[in-house]
């Protein structure tokens, strides 16, 4: 997601065109549409199978999981498995940590990039070009290109094993800034002029005019950033050591058996995996419209 640039000029238009379901209906023969339905349905089923299989495993007892041939129907151990996974992985605490991290990063990034986009579009100030350039360059500095040194900074700040460490360093956002900047530029100048005539200062204008107008963009950005924050792996691995500060995505790794002496309790692992993947998937499902908008807008 990081370094995708100005490649999709037509893509937004394409997707927008594709959106209305009522579009189309051509003189193509009907069987063509049927083949298409079949193919897409097949694709969805193939894609869904691993998820279904993981869910099925999470409902089986250990004996059922390790029996051959593999059983492909849900069984009755679902409650036991989820309770066991919840307890053993300290899932409650880890899900809270993940929630704090995902929400913190999403809300932080949105606020910070909204403010900088506002400054860049609505003010003339010395060094504006430099600021813009600096924000752009962060696209080229993902975590892997500064692993050891970033950890050093976090350690020097005393932020290891803290929520500050998990969230604040990831709050800078070129993508968000560019998104809001682009959006602000489409707002007619007359609006700011009218606000000024009415005696509204810049912050009043931001709060009462720009903010309400930006709701759709904020929601779109929120879905993308929540998913990003929830699923981030390398960062929480770097800045947390204590088990109670680990996030769910990295905590689950501890359940995977690494040696022959551990019981291969795949039903428990899959139950944990289900709990970890549910929140971001639910956010995508419930905010579907914003999610698609976010995908298009942030990749520009």
């Amino acid at each position, binding site marked *: *997601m990081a*370094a*995708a*640039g*100005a*490649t*999709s000029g037509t*893509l937004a238009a*394409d*997707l927008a*065109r*594709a959106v209305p379901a009522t579009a189309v209906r*051509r003189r*193509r023969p009907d069987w063509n549409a049927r*083949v*298409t339905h079949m*193919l897409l349905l097949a694709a969805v089923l193939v*894609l869904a199978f*691993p998820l279904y*299989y993981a869910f099925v495993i999470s409902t089986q007892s250990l004996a059922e999981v390790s029996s*051959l041939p*593999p059983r492909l129907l849900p069984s009755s151990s679902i409650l036991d498995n989820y309770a066991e996974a919840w307890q053993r992985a300290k899932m409650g605490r880890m899900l809270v940590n993940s929630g704090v991290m995902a929400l913190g990063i999403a809300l932080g990034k949105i*606020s*910070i990039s909204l*403010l*900088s986009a506002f*400054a860049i*579009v*609505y003010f*003339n100030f010395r060094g504006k070009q430099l600021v813009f350039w*600096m924000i752009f360059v962060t*696209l*080229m*500095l*993902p975590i*892997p*290109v*500064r*692993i*050891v*040194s970033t950890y050093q*900074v976090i350690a020097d700040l005393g932020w290891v094993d803290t929520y500050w460490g998990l969230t604040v360093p990831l*709050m*800078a956002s070129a993508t968000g800034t560019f998104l809001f900047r682009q959006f602000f530029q489409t707002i007619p*100048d*007359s609006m700011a002029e009218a606000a000024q005539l009415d005696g509204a200062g*810049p912050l009043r204008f931001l709060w009462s005019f720009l903010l309400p107008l930006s709701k759709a963009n904020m929601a779109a950005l929120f879905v993308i950033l929540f*998913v990003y924050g929830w*699923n981030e*792996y*390398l960062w929480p691995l770097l800045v947390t050591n204590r088990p109670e500060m680990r996030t769910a995505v*990295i905590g689950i790794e501890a359940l995977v058996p690494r040696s022959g002496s551990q019981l291969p309790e795949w039903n428990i*692992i899959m139950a944990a*995996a289900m709990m*970890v*993947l549910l929140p971001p998937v639910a956010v*995508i499902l419930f905010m579907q419209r914003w999610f*698609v908008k976010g*995908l298009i807008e942030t*990749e520009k």
Partner: protein
Amino acid sequence: MKRSVFPNRWLPYLLVAPQLVITIVFFFWPAIDSLRLSLYRASPFGDRMIFVGAGNFQRLFADPAYLRSALTTFLFSFLVTFIGLALALLLAALANAKIRGLVVYRSLLLLPYGIAPAIAGIIWLFIFHPSYGILPYLLSFVTAYQFNWFLKGWVALTLIIVAAIWKQFGYNLAFYLAGLQGIPSSVLEAASVDGAGPIRRFFAVTFPLLSPVTFFLFILNMTFSFFETFGLVHSVTQGGPGDATSIMVYKAWKDGFEGLQLGLSAAQSVVLMAIVIGLTAFQFRYAEKKVTY
């Protein structure tokens, strides 16, 4: 440029301050520090750093394990991107009738986007599991070969490639489907009238017209497989067996945090930095030119 600007001297600086502070403290400073650190090596007792110039880089590029890791990374990224895009394009092209309900399919296809690579990896790990997994079970009817990724490097590599492709597939397909909807059917009909068959129509009309989508997805998938698959490797194969799946980001992390070779890890970060800059430059150099209609 806006005509109506708020006249205020200090407010804009205040507004960009949070962004800039984070950018400098957590992006620029560590990046510069990585560059510096890549020129040093810890003393035998770890109490001070010794300047070694390009020594770390010389060591890296003379180290077969590092070169193998680079090769693995490029192979992995190339296969994930190429197979992923080819499959998505093929399916999209076959499924190109204008139909109702495309929005529903798109929603379903995009769901795996929300699943962390690490979780995707753990699910596929079980599907590939040598004793209980459904895939080796099914394959056992076809061949006696033991698809044991615990032991065989190429099976482990296949496992993470499949998991990565799976995670990206719906996303790629959704963008190709949208791109196809944007191609005017008059163009295809014209080609048809000129006597072009379906395959020729695809290569002469559809594929070139989709080149912006392909380019965009290419960059996106390369970036993904290079930089966002750390969790996949860490949670599933841990770089193994041997170092068969030790991709560059994983190796940089491991050498730094488990091997405590800070200089060597920083040097690997610098190499990765060069790769990101290269990818970005490539993207901006060719974004407008090569891929227009």
